[in-house]
């Protein structure tokens, strides 16, 4: 097959050695398994990955700059858009940080409602993880099952706050609306519905030999590296550290609930998957406890519309589904923050991808990337 193409290399002749050549594959920005707009520049030797360079910034909206231009109340809706898969948690982090800054006491009912919503959102987020992780490995059906359950959570949210994705539910000093009448019974029903469903996912995936082959021992991340890379959340717990901000630095009402912190042993892809599966059960437990002990009372502290926190700085972090989400706020006493630094979990977790992926096959990088559960808007902000 001779085709007259000028840039075709010379045919190899006898006196030249047959050399193999590394080649560069651009995985993304548009690729089925980059979960958004992320570009991974892979240097490959055949199927084996020699080097990964993540290229981010395609979704950069400069939310930190926008924050300097919005009041504290207004910025709430932008926190939704930092991490749209778990925007309740992003709301929560902003509220916790601003309340820390201004020293606002939040009514107990509001704290309980926040915990319920944050944990439901954690379940929803982990369901999205499960769905996309399964599809990354080629199993399409669990995707639909996971979204079926997520739909019920989203219905609960819509019932409460009116939106299905960018909830904008929490307010500085409380929450925006009290839950509707049948929310408590519906949520209890959902929790008891969830446990058998999680068992179902496990039946399809967890011990499946093909799934084990694709995840066990793949993408190892040892604990010192994880800590040094500031990896947080399920990847950190998957590497074996029993660390959860909800337990270790409790915020809201988390100290009142009884739950376990699941951890992995080897820090491989399977461990990270298993930690998240287990966390769904624990979150359902927290929700059940919170519903049981939901106190009566107000849902919002008095915060003026023209809210001016005192001059100062605040650093607050919470345990979002993907890991640690922190806000560093500098206030100059006006209605707008002077500087907001948003630390998101995906940003740091993605940074550890090159270490984890080196030496594995191209199919594995999909699994490893999926197991980190990266949300790209959270990386780029």
């Amino acid at each position, binding site marked *: 097959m001779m085709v007259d193409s000028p840039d075709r290399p010379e045919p190899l002749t006898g006196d030249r050695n047959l050399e193999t050549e590394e080649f560069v594959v651009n995985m993304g920005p548009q690729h*089925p398994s980059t979960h958004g707009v992320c570009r991974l520049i892979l240097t490959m030797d055949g199927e084996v990955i020699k080097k990964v360079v993540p290229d981010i910034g395609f979704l950069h909206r400069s939310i930190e700059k926008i924050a300097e231009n919005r009041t504290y109340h207004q910025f709430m809706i932008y926190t939704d858009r930092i991490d749209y898969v778990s925007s309740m948690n992003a709301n929560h982090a902003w509220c916790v940080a601003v309340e820390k800054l201004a020293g606002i006491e939040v009514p107990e009912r509001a704290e309980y409602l926040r915990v319920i919503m944050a944990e439901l959102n954690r379940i929803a987020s982990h369901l999205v993880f499960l769905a996309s992780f399964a599809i990354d*490995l080629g199993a399409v059906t669990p995707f639909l099952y996971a979204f079926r359950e997520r739909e019920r959570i989203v219905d609960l949210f819509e019932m409460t706050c009116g939106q299905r994705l960018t909830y904008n539910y929490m307010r500085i000093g409380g929450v925006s609306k009290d839950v509707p009448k049948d929310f408590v019974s519906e949520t209890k029903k959902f929790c008891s519905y969830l446990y058998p469903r999680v068992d179902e996912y496990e039946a399809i995936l967890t011990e499946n030999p093909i799934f084990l082959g694709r995840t066990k021992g793949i993408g190892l991340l040892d604990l010192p590296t994880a800590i040094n890379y500031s990896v947080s959340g399920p990847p950190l717990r998957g590497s074996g550290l029993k660390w959860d901000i909800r337990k270790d630095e409790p915020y809201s009402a988390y100290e009142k609930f009884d739950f376990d912190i699941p951890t992995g042993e080897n820090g491989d892809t399977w461990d990270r998957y298993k930690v998240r599966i287990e966390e769904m059960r624990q979150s359902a437990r927290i929700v059940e406890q919170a519903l049981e002990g939901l106190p009566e009372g107000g849902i919002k502290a008095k915060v003026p519309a023209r809210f001016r926190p005192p001059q100062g700085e605040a650093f607050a972090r919470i345990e979002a589904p993907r890991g640690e989400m922190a806000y560093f706020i500098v206030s100059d006493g006006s209605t707008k923050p002077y500087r907001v630094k948003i630390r998101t979990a995906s940003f740091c977790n993605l940074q550890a991808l090159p270490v984890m992926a080196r030496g594995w096959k191209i*199919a594995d990088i999909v699994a490893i990337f999926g197991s980190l559960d990266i949300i790209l808007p959270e990386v780029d902000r």
Partner: protein
Amino acid sequence: MFELEGIFSAVGDFLASFLGAPLLQIVSIIAVAGVVIGFLMVLALFLVWWERKLSADFQVRIGPMRTGPHGVLQTIADALKLLQKEDIVPLTADKKVFFWAPVICFVTCFLAYICMPFGKGLIVRDLNIGILYIVAITTFTVISLLMAGWASNNKYSLLGGMRSAAQIISYEVPLSLSLLGAVMLAQSLSMVTIVQGQGGSFLHWYIWRQPLGFLLYVTAATAEVNRTPFDIPEAEQELVAGYNIEYSGMKFAMFFLAEFINMFTVCAIAATLFLGGWNPPFEFLSFIPSWVWFLGKSLFLVFILMWFRWTYPRLRVDQLMAFAWKFLLPLAFLNIIVTGFLIYLFE
């Protein structure tokens, strides 16, 4: 009653009454080819629709509903849409090879049906090396996939093409070996003889004497036609679409339909060799025409393949190779040795 054999011979006699012998030869060849290809095209369209409906049902969805009752005409509409699409050839592609790859893929998938016994007496040509011919001709697919992967001049395509070459050639070995057991039992390579050897009740089917062979065959065949969990050549999450990433319009449709026809081919082989072909499971059920049995058994196996696809994750390329060479191949050899030993013992 509804046996098609009579109809075909009647048509043949009718044609012979006014056509001379050489002309009859040509006309009958064209007619038979037309009938087989037409049947397979309809079958492929049906399989695409069925897969979509079945996957929807597994996933608590509905699937196509708009075109025709329960969307049965959906694939026809899709095919018509693909026919109208612009035929895009990448600038840097190897144009000739790029063109011929889908054609070869599409043509070879029909060739296997020359000696496929659809029913009692319903076979285009009963070659005495039938099964050998089928195994040989189905391997042609790999050439077309490799051509497609190479000619697209795309890194993902190339990876897909290389993967498919490695995979299909590797799985060809355990596939052929697993068929040998049935061939040894039938003492023949002819498809018709193999089917006739399984006559009587369903207890005479070779699956009872070749359970391991059957399992090995189904596994290897799944890999042979690039279905999940062995669909790494077109692994969507890694290679986007593998070898057919640059193909669009009718060329893509050819690959797509060929994939489904290939899937039916391997299932039909399994039905013929292990499930008694067109033989009914019980003597008293023989009033149902033989081709219904053949189709039913083949489609049942197709269902199992689809069931696999919508349940399992995908293997990795090195695991796939290891599975073929380290697991399937020794078992296939073991199967042959045990079969041979038992045949020697009981006869």
